[in-house]
């Protein structure tokens, strides 16, 4: 009974704090592994079986979606893990007709992927990935100055398309007025009033998604060309 109370307290703490959620996932890894093994009917191999990663994200979802009215947490988590694994298995079945690049292509068991010319330069790709990683690390460091982490941004990201569009309008306005980005970097504060007045986006919307707006505006300051290059769709359909 006390254990049950303890885990519920931990779950409620993990809902608010992502580090706490990571700790809880770490503490309940044997449970997650056991549920995955039950589904696979064999022990999962860490780093190899995607099912274990699916089970972990399902456990994370269980933390987010749990409330006391749902009964015992572990039963709820086990149910969620199982249903996510079933969904994953179904989606994987759809790709079964696709031939894997690892399929032996010839008599000498050479993988099919090795026989195809992909036109990509692997070393160049590795360099781009390293450069991207460097940009992301720099962005994370800069975001820390604002007291914002990437996980916070993921939590704070608008879910509805309408809200996302409103935030994009504010971003577009800031891009058109570089002095706003300068002000952001200098004051470490989001110029909500000016963004709202200039873009027509409601102040309440900007305040509610402040962390997300900080991340986007930082990306549109100098120095994040690769990430900006990835955001090909952001400015589409935005008109102030």
């Amino acid at each position, binding site marked *: 009974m006390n254990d049950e109370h303890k885990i519920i307290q931990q779950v409620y703490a993990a809902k608010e704090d992502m580090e706490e959620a990571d700790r809880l996932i770490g503490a309940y890894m044997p449970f997650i592994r056991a549920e995955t093994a039950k589904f696979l009917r064999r022990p999962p191999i860490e780093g190899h079986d995607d099912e274990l*990663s699916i089970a972990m994200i399902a456990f*994370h979802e269980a933390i987010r979606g749990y409330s006391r009215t749902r009964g015992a947490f572990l039963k709820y988590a086990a149910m969620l893990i199982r249903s996510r694994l079933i969904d994953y298995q179904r989606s994987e079945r759809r790709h079964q007709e696709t031939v894997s690049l690892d399929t032996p292509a010839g008599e000498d068991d050479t993988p099919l992927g090795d026989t195809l010319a992909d036109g990509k330069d692997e070393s160049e790709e590795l360099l781009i*990935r390293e450069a991207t990683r460097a940009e992301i690390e720099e962005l994370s460091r800069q975001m820390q100055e604002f007291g914002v982490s990437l996980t916070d941004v993921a939590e704070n990201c608008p879910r509805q398309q309408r809200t996302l569009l409103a935030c994009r309008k504010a971003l577009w306005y800031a891009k058109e007025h570089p002095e706003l980005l300068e002000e952001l970097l200098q004051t470490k504060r989001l110029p909500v009033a000016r963004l709202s007045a200039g873009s027509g986006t409601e102040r309440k919307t900007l305040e509610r998604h402040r962390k997300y707006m900080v991340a986007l505006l930082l990306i549109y300051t100098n120095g994040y060309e690769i990430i900006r290059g990835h*955001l090909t769709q*952001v400015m589409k359909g935005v008109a102030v």
Partner: protein
Amino acid sequence: MNYMVMECHPGYAVLLDEEGRFRKAANLHYEVGQTVCDPVLMREGPSRQQKLIRWASGSFAAVAACFMMLIGLRYYQHNLAAYSSIYLTINPEVQMDLNRQGDVIRLEGGNEDGRQLLEGYTGKGKDKITVTDELIDRAIEMGFLSEGGQISFSIDTPDEALFREYGEELTDEVLRHLQDRFTITVEIVNSQTGETESTEGTQNSAPASQEIISVPAPSEQETAPADDDTDYGPAGDGVTDYGDSDYGPGSDGVTDYTAPAETAEEPPEADSGSSSYGESSYDGSNYEDDDDDGGDDDSDDSDDDDGDDGGDDDD
């Protein structure tokens, strides 16, 4: 759509899609900076709008369930719940429970003959008149009802008008049903008030006569004194007379019985609660000569006397 891996945690990864959304997804052995195209995204909880829709649909379902329950309750009250009962007595006793529509919802034998009469018969869902006719036919077939017999219907209903309606319906129907076969008496009893109404039917004719007899309530019958010399109730004289036995070795030879009235030809009324013991013909027996013979002979004699008198049997 392509996603850029922004951050990796043991349980999840933070991805950035091309539209600028930061999403959490299962960390399928990703590395920061990698671009992936088919991630397993974390499912978000229901939004406020979805919660509102869920609440509205839940409320609608609850209201619909209440409405269905009300309809069900009304149907139950009208069709399935017993509203009134009819106790059919020929010699077999049968209890018919009726719903508000007058259809039979339960049949139960009140005595052994009643159970025998209902054996293999299913009257559930039929109208009370149909069931009554069918039960009377069965009673005739099984020899329970013959010429000159009596059928009594004791009707238990909370509604006086309904009692009248049922009583008239049953009387008319039974007499009509049997008019070509038997002459019988139909008795309708209001089980609430004890009021009795008798109708005698004759062959090939309509009901011949109707008589309304008011019968005292059962509680009054129970408290009525059975004899002047009672040892019970307020009329008790305090002398129990238990020692004045006419049986066994303590018998004094004096029976104290009065001679039976010569004119008492009519059977005693059972309903009055009188035991008829005072009409015994023990004076004419050889009881005094057999003082020492013990109880067996006495009982034989009394059996014979009973047979002669036949007071109860004639009833």
